[in-house]
């Protein structure tokens, strides 16, 4: 053997060893990356936080201008402002393959020569070599986003994504829709109306629907042919007396006589009697019965007077009284409100004052003045 042969012979093992070692290193890297990215439970924090420290600032500075919620139509249909968006990829497919930087477009596009047509970012400075290396390392280590949530992905309905930093106030569910609570409590004390009772109601022309879904409290109103509903017709509703929580007799032909039946309704919460022939006498009948739960009485357009309000002082639960277009005076209304300490009396209709013939034809155009 001459010296050349010896040299070559020595080289082979060296090369071989080099190759072997190189492989090991890569493998070690990949294994390392695999363990790291899958390992969230251990205290190992080498890569957690690495994203937010070294990669996120780069994204913000170089990428978000075109690839985030800031842009109405993100370029290439690609957003990079949250893990979900990054993983969704863009028009040309996925941009990130954890562990494989050479297969991740979000790295490879940035690593192109700066005079290349497809280099990212397309304008301004390309990424500095050390920044690029950070991105490559991060991807090679498994592309762990750590605790970063970024912008929340849009919902299927296409609502605008709003910065998660936006403040949202919470509400106390117990303070909501207090009006319905009354019905909920009441409904438990009432039994299901019988089908014959419901039929009787229907025969009178009444419309009876549950106040709460599936509940036993009813809302009864007369909608069709109201002018024909008189005391006799209304009396047919009596089998439902315990179930009626809301009753509307607006525009019907009932008189004070029907108040006797109405006064017998123990679970009545709202009573509408506008434009009926009810008078102070009818209110007296109601007041005598002292319905405990009645909260709202609507008497607009009736002939009641201040005197008719006195018996209503006995109603402990009265909250709203509507007496516009009646003979109740302003003083009478104020007096009643003061004496009940808590009942609102609605006696006025505060329409805006009519003005001189309008200059406006209501379509956003001034009426053109006729030329003389």
């Amino acid at each position, binding site marked *: 053997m001459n010296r050349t042969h010896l040299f070559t012979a020595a080289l082979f093992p060296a090369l071989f060893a080099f190759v072997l070692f190189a492989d090991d290193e890569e493998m070690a890297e990949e294994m390392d990356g695999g363990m790291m990215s899958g390992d969230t439970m251990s205290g190992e924090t080498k890569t957690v936080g690495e994203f937010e420290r070294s990669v996120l600032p780069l994204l913000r500075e170089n990428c978000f201008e075109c690839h985030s919620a800031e842009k109405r139509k993100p370029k290439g249909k690609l957003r990079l402002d949250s893990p979900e968006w990054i993983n969704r990829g863009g028009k040309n497919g996925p941009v990130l393959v954890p562990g494989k930087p050479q297969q991740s477009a979000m790295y490879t596009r940035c690593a192109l020569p700066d005079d290349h047509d497809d280099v990212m970012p397309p304008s301004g400075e390309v990424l500095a070599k050390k920044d690029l290396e950070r991105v490559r390392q991060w991807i090679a280590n498994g592309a762990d986003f750590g605790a970063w949530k970024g912008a929340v992905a849009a919902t299927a309905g296409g609502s605008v994504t709003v910065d998660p930093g936006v403040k949202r106030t919470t509400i106390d569910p117990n303070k909501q829709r207090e009006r319905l609570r009354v019905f909920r409590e009441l409904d438990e004390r009432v039994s299901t109306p019988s089908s014959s009772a419901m039929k009787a109601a229907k025969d009178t022309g009444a419309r009876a629907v549950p106040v709460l879904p599936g509940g036993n409290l009813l809302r009864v109103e007369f909608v069709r042919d109201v002018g024909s509903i008189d005391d006799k017709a209304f009396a047919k509703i009596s089998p439902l007396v315990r179930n009626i929580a809301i009753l509307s007799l607006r525009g019907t032909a009932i008189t004070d006589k029907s108040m006797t039946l109405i006064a017998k309704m123990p679970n009545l919460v709202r009573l509408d009697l506008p434009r009926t022939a009810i008078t102070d006498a009818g209110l007296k009948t109601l007041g005598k019965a002292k319905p405990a739960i009645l909260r709202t009485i609507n008497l607009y357009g009736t002939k009641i007077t201040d005197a008719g309000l006195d018996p209503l002082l006995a109603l402990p639960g009265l909250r709203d009284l509507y007496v516009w277009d009646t003979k109740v005076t302003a003083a009478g209304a104020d007096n009643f409100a003061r004496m009940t300490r808590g009942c609102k009396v609605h006696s006025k209709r505060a*329409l*805006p004052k009519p003005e001189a013939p309008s200059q406006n034809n209501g379509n*956003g155009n001034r009426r053109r003045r006729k030329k003389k």
Partner: protein
Amino acid sequence: MRLKRYLDGFDNPTRRSFLSGAAKGLLGLSTAPLMTSIARAGATAEIPLQAATARNVIYMYMAGGMTHLDTFDVKPGAATQGPTKAIKTNADGVQIGQYFPMLAKQMDKVAIINSMNSNQGAHAQGRYYMHTGYQMRGTIRHPSLGAWLEKMRGRVNRTLPGHVVVGGGGQMATNGFFDASLTPLPIGDPTAGLLNSQRVEHVTEERFEHRIHKLEKMNEAFRDKHKSRSLKDYAKVYEEAVRLMDSKDLVAFDVTKESDDVRAAYGDNKFGQGALLARRLVERGVRFVEIVSGGWDTHSDNFERMNDLCPPVDRALSALLADLEARGMLDETLVVLTTEFGRTPDIITDRANGRNHYPKAFSALMAGGGIKGGQKYGKTDAEGRNIIENPVSVQDFNATIAYSLGLPLEFQVYSPSGRPFKVAHDGKPVKALF
């Protein structure tokens, strides 16, 4: 029916769509028996209704994109405010634009949402999205809120339509893929009443019934041979018309029955009289009435145009709130004012100070129907550009309306093609408003 006069009462888009519909209907029409009252085939029994605080909706739509900075999201002192001044209202801590002085006296009844947002910046798409909660597609037509309400809760007064639109054109209220009987009734001019809803004088009741009977007989063979949904729909249109003609509540459509003072208080213009008509209809059991105000697309001359656009709305809304309140109806009637998007905080000086489209943030109003008045919900930043608190998407907005009406938000209704849809898509109601 005197067709031409009837048609003249409509705005152009409505007339076109009516013509196309009517043309189909007048040829080979099959009339299901008109003389007997048809029991409403409703699937409403299966729909899991929820507790409601509102029964009715009066929906005021500002078509074109109402500016938010000049109306209900004023930013006194900001560069983006322009010449608009803010005024105090009768609600603590609430200021609105100077163009709504009458409404300022009623703001204790109203909740302002300043954090509306949409991703639709074009008129047709924006309008569609606001009305239906879904994006405009070529493949299907979605129903608007009024149709959903009627579908899920039926009608209160069966002789009147469940759903009426005053002054609206395309991309507004529609029955979508629902039954034709849920089509809203369009009214072009609210002061004209319901045209051609009376029998022509020389046709007595007897003759009318005779004619209908003949028509039925003529179509019997056709109807039996071709059983299709479209035919049933056309028949329903006629059914509805006849029922309406016979209704004793037709007088609801006649605003001339109101005193001159009241009519003047609402405003002597289409929008004002439309609001008055809405109140009359709701009183008689029509649950959903939409009134459209046009011209809000102020790309140029924004501030001058505010002087023209706002007063009719200011007056109509103020009158409506006062009127409903006095009648004890405000508790159960949800009054809504909304638009498709807002307008840019930056003022476009080379267009005589206009503002362009801005769906990122805009404002809407809600009152009555269980809403807690006198509050502002949601905030934008100091210049009115970005939402910084409590964003409300268009779907959330519709979900809030549905929530007040007790309509189930998760319940899916299937289109004829078998796709599921919900009343407010994926929206979550803003419960803090109640």
